[in-house]
């Protein structure tokens, strides 16, 4: 079964989706969409770095994403610039530096398009192992820190005052985003990763009545988006990365249309 490239792509997409859905909910609840965007743009710089140092791209992306996240935390203390301005600066600066350094390495014939939009059809068994292995780690850590993370999302002050380990939970959260970006980079590319975090969560919001339900529903929506997108790309021979995002977007539109109906049924 794993011999078929389409099947591998499907399994890879679903593996990422199961993780990106729940994690994306926290990004949406914490209004960190642009934060995730910045971390994933920095991934390009991570790729350049790992090529330069002859490392697996995974490690370069992981390290740079975390470095950018920590830099943001440091810079936010400056207080002079609003955080979305800072994010805008770091996001595009790291993207540009990444592109320029890739350009300098002319001896490596890197296809920038696959870095920006991913190359899901070329994933190997090794990639699959990384995606599912990483996915299990991410979901495990997320479950372990669920209560602290959720409490800190509702009110960081209440959670820390009442003795929950919020600092650790917030740090783990950053780590998990970096991990998902590093794993998903090859699949869907630096420019589109955040869409798989945010759009399914936004669709799930229309129906969910509790944070837990929203997280599970978001995972489900993200899986559907991956399946839908890959089939569209097979059908129309379109670029699979953007097709998955299109799938997620179509599901979002559908959720907007169906939600009022679902609410009407519930109140009846």
């Amino acid at each position, binding site marked *: 079964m794993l011999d078929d490239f389409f099947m591998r792509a499907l399994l890879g997409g679903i593996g990422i989706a199961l993780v990106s859905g729940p994690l994306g909910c926290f990004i949406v*609840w914490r209004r960190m969409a642009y934060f995730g965007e910045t971390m994933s743009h920095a991934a390009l710089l991570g790729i350049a770095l790992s090529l330069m140092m002859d490392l697996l791209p995974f490690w370069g992306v992981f390290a740079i994403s975390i470095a950018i996240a920590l830099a943001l935390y440091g810079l936010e203390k400056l*207080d002079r610039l609003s955080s979305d301005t800072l994010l805008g600066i770091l996001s595009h600066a790291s993207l540009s530096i990444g592109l320029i350094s890739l350009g300098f390495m002319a001896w490596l014939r890197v296809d920038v398009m696959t870095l920006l939009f991913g190359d899901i059809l070329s994933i190997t068994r090794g990639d699959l192992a990384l995606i599912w292995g990483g996915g299990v780690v991410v979901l495990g850590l997320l479950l372990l820190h669920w209560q602290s993370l959720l*409490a800190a999302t*509702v*009110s960081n002050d*209440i959670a*820390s005052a009442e*003795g929950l380990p919020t600092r650790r939970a917030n740090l783990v959260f950053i780590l998990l985003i970096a991990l998902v970006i590093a794993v998903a980079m090859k699949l869907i590319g630096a420019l589109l990763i955040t869409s798989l975090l945010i759009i399914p969560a936004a669709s799930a919001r229309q129906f969910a*009545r509790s944070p837990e339900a929203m997280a599970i529903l978001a995972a489900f929506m993200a899986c559907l988006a991956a399946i839908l997108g890959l089939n569209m790309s097979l059908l129309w021979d379109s670029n699979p990365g953007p097709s998955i995002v299109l799938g997620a977007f179509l599901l979002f539109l559908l959720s907007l249309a169906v939600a009022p109906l679902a609410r009407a049924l519930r109140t009846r």
Partner: protein
Amino acid sequence: MTHSDPLLAGTDISVRADGKTLLDNVSVSVSANEIVTIIGPNGGGKTTLLKALLGLLPIASGTVKRKKKLNLGYVPQKLVIDRTLPLTVKRLMQLTGRYSHDRIIAALGETGVAHKINDNIHSLSGGEMQRVLLARAIIRKPELMVLDEPVQGVDYLGEIALYQLIETIRNKYNCGILLVSHDLHMVMRASNRVICLNTHVCCSGQPTVVEQSPDYQRLFGTRGLQTMAPYGHRHGHFHDVDQEESAPLAATAGGEPHSCTADHHHHEDHEGHHHAR
């Protein structure tokens, strides 16, 4: 009153931000069975003091001592939750601990919002939300409750009832209560100690003493004197945020420098602090 070790004690706390001193050598402690109320003008550092005591913001100097494994319930001044987070009242009640349905109903019942248990928190009014937050702190059966203007947005009669409830809770659980209020008259009778804060401690002591201190009268006017009757008639309107600052302060702000010569407190070193903002 303080024969037992305090639950939470801050000594000589100073907090600075952006080169500005927000708190200057402030000491405060709360023991079991004690209600300590912090009053003071807007920008006087009341919320900053609570946050410093709770370890929510860094202090420049001083120490904070907290009883080991202190069970604490906290009601912050305001809570903004993103609308994308679906949360029912029942789920919010279990934010930092798990409780049975009956216990949740009972806690919500005490603050008068038991019927809201299955409602989405985004559909609550400001006053209802405060009641839910107070219930959320009560359900923990805390040893210490830290309340930052817990009844804002609550209607007048509700406000009296909630302050009475706070007192009842103290009597029932023997817990300590640290309370911030900009409205002294409501909390006066129940408090064991009042601290009047305007960056530094202006005066502190028993409510009756504080109310008669010249510093208090400078900050709040003398209207407090008429309202010593329990939960008596109030002047001014609750919703008017600037009320406390406008009239009495403006009258003295430009005047002669004054020192803090409260009866049992020693802060004579402050000459001519700036209350004008």
